[in-house]
């Protein structure tokens, strides 16, 4: 049996459930254990049902688990929803002021909070006190944690926690003595890793319109960006965001935008604009279940086909998707850099399950790419923005300059002046097509596919599902070769076609199997072994392990 300890805390939105999860994570991090936190919340502000799952292990860990050792229910609904998720030997603690139950341990979390202001907002402190007790900590440790994490109204929080400590200790003290781990680095949300990767990669300006699950990137960059000289702008619409970004790139700023599927749909006209202008812009597309407004606060992988085909007309673009939080840091910087190297729009395709999940990562900022285009060094005659080179890449120049620099949305000649003549039209198409080939050439020289393990069946997966698959293999003790294409367009056919004839298991979160179709389309590799989840929830490792076993 693996050493995985899982803590679930559930309650209403507004009761600080996510915060409890974060504090639980920090306590498990204090034990140097690897962490994975998944926040499940609804599209509402108060009420409803939220929960946070924090799994931790002394060993590698890339997913939350839903079989929990300790479950704390702040309201009755949580009890009904989570009681069946209790692992053998696990403990369920509930708020006895709002419900009663036969199993589990009731604690009067609300009434104990009544002496203090806003008792409803304090129950989160109870939940993490319970965890601390169960992990065998003393009150001194708990005080330290509260000082660190619940600074506001510190005194009352400590007093309240002491009462909960006293009530919980008799039944729970030291129930789950956990092994220390060797985890390194920081617990980071995907959204933070992406933001930091963009900063490390040289980002100057970020534009967005709020949209779950991409908003945390906007919020992070708005709050933290200025320290690094990075500015985040919340504009009137995604249409404006994308057009402003292309303008910003024209002026020489490293520019990224972020959104989810619906917002990206509004950006596709400007995505094509970036294609013809050869504008370096990074588009961050964080998916949620679609179509349309769909299910805003949950996860799915059904924007792949759209991302790859987006924008009218023929033009090169790069689409890649990170498999882990750490990979999202590097890949964001890489895609910003590739946008500049190849003067093409790039898409970081990711999902709620990555942007809004938190796990350990040890990104090394000095190893991040730094966005840099090929700059104009002078050539015969006047500057030509769209000089037809062999690579298809024309040297860049930004204003102010004594040269005239013309970027155009119309088909244009080398200078950038409009043309409707057949020769120049075809020449520009050829130039951009050569750029596509240069991109392919470049990708052949870098790691475009990650392969984990060897032997056993071949499993194809990508994006945040990669984390689920890896954890499922650990959980189920399954030997397999996991193939994760990081780059999806241009597709690394040269890497993936090795697995021809393997009848791979394809794991993804799309009802139509967009990823499986892409593989078939690009490599001809077909399969009759599909695992698809499309109910908005990420895969659960034990369940997924079973599904894999059923197929092999």
């Amino acid at each position, binding site marked *: 049996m693996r050493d995985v300890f899982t803590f679930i805390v559930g309650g209403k939105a507004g009761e600080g459930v996510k915060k409890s999860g974060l504090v639980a994570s920090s306590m498990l991090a204090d034990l140097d254990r690897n962490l994975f936190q998944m926040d499940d919340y609804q599209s509402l502000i108060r009420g409803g049902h939220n929960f946070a799952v924090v799994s931790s292990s002394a060993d590698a860990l890339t997913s939350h688990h839903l079989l929990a050792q300790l479950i704390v229910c702040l309201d009755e609904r949580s009890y009904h929803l989570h009681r069946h998720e209790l692992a053998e030997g696990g403990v369920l603690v509930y708020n006895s002021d709002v419900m009663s139950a036969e199993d589990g341990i009731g604690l009067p979390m609300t009434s104990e909070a009544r002496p203090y202001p806003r008792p409803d907002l304090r129950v989160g402190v109870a939940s993490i006190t319970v965890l601390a007790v169960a992990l065998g900590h003393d009150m001194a440790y708990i005080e330290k944690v509260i000082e660190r994490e619940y600074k506001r109204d510190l005194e009352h929080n400590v007093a309240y926690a002491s009462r909960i400590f006293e009530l919980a200790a008799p039944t729970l003290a030291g129930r789950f003595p956990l092994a220390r781990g060797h985890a390194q680095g920081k617990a980071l949300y995907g959204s933070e890793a992406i933001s930091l990767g963009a900063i*490390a990669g040289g980002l100057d300006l970020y534009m967005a319109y709020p949209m779950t699950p991409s908003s945390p990137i906007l919020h992070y960059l708005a709050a933290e960006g200025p320290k690094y000289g990075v500015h985040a702008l919340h*504009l009137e*619409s995604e249409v404006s965001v994308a057009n402003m970004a292309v*303008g910003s790139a024209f002026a020489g*700023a490293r520019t990224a935008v972020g959104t989810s599927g619906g917002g990206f749909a509004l950006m596709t006209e400007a995505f094509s604009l970036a294609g013809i202008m050869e504008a370096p812009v990074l588009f961050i597309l964080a998916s949620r279940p679609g179509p349309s407004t769909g299910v805003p606060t949950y996860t799915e992988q059904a924007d792949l086909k759209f991302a790859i085909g987006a924008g009218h007309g023929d033009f090169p673009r790069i689409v890649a998707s990170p498999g882990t939080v750490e990979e999202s840091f590097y890949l964001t910087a890489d895609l910003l850099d590739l946008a500049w190297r190849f003067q093409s729009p790039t898409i970081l395709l990711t999902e709620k399950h990555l942007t809004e999940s938190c796990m350990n990562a040890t990104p090394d900022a000095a190893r991040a790419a730094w966005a840099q285009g090929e700059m104009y060094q002078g050539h015969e005659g006047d500057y030509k923005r769209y000089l037809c080179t062999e690579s298809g890449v024309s040297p860049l120049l930004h204003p102010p300059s004594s040269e005239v620099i013309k970027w155009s949305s119309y088909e244009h000649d080398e200078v950038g002046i409009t043309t409707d003549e057949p020769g120049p039209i075809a020449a520009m198409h050829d130039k951009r097509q050569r750029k596509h080939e240069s991109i392919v050439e470049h990708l052949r020289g870098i790691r475009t596919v990650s392969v984990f393990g060897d032997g056993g069946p071949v499993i194809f997966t990508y994006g945040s599902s990669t984390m689920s698959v890896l954890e499922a293999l650990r959980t189920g003790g399954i030997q397999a070769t996991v193939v994760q294409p990081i780059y999806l367009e241009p597709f690394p056919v040269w890497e993936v076609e090795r697995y021809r004839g393997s009848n791979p298991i394809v794991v993804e979160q799309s009802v139509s199997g967009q990823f499986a179709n892409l593989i078939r389309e690009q490599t001809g590799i077909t399969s009759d072994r599909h695992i698809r989840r499309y109910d908005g929830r990420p895969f659960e490792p034990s369940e997924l392990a079973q599904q894999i076993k059923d197929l092999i």
Partner: protein
Amino acid sequence: MRELGTYAENQWCPGCGNFAILNAFKAAVPKLEAAGVARENLVLVAGIGQHGKMFDYTNLTGFYGLHGRSMSSAQGIKLANPDLRVINFVGDGDSLGEGLEHTIFAAKRNAQIAMVMHDNGVYALTTGQFTPVSERGYRGPSTPTGTVEDPLHPLTLMLEVGASFIARGFSGELDHLAELMVQAVLHEGFAFLDVLQPCVTFNNTWKTYNDLVEIVDQPATTPEEARALFTRSDKLPIGVLYRREDVPFHQRLYGDANPIRDKAPREARQAQVATYLA
């Protein structure tokens, strides 16, 4: 000094009001240089329509954006490098139809852009459909029996949403127009310049405008006065009709900083990230 014209063949109809706008702009550029705006800091941004051909006909650094969206791109340019001076040539369909929202937000933010609207009352390039400023009853190929919509009034609308500089020019008053362009570019904030531009093919307004246009020397000093001036029914006043001082958007955001100029080098930036991550 480079020629201001280009090798692109002019494709406007003979007699079109756009020629005067092009020539006024060519006259404005040296005046701007004299006023301290280096030509290399000037960026011409154009929308899509007959007006947009200003891009091809002018030998200046420029950005030929999307129909209706070039005002967003113009703001992106200014925000990336506030040292640049951005002039945005747009159409009435372009900026009050497809792109109305961006126009309004640029004004609301006081983004420092000189917006020059070629106001010809038609979608000229797409063969003469009505625009948001066309009078009710206008017949075009999409409204063969006349549009049933009432027009927007660009000047009062811009006043309403916070434009800090509002001017009107006329293709028939070239020198005056050139001077208005200079003022618009020099204005520290959002400058809206509505140019009465006869379209000889689809909406020939030369006579009306010649009859009604009147140069006004003094801008209105209050919004109420401005509104009265904008909506005079006897005459069409042209000139700077309203202006007020206000801090432009980029300065509200960054003060005097400039994201590109002030950027830390790679090592410093990455070291700072590393420190945070440690």
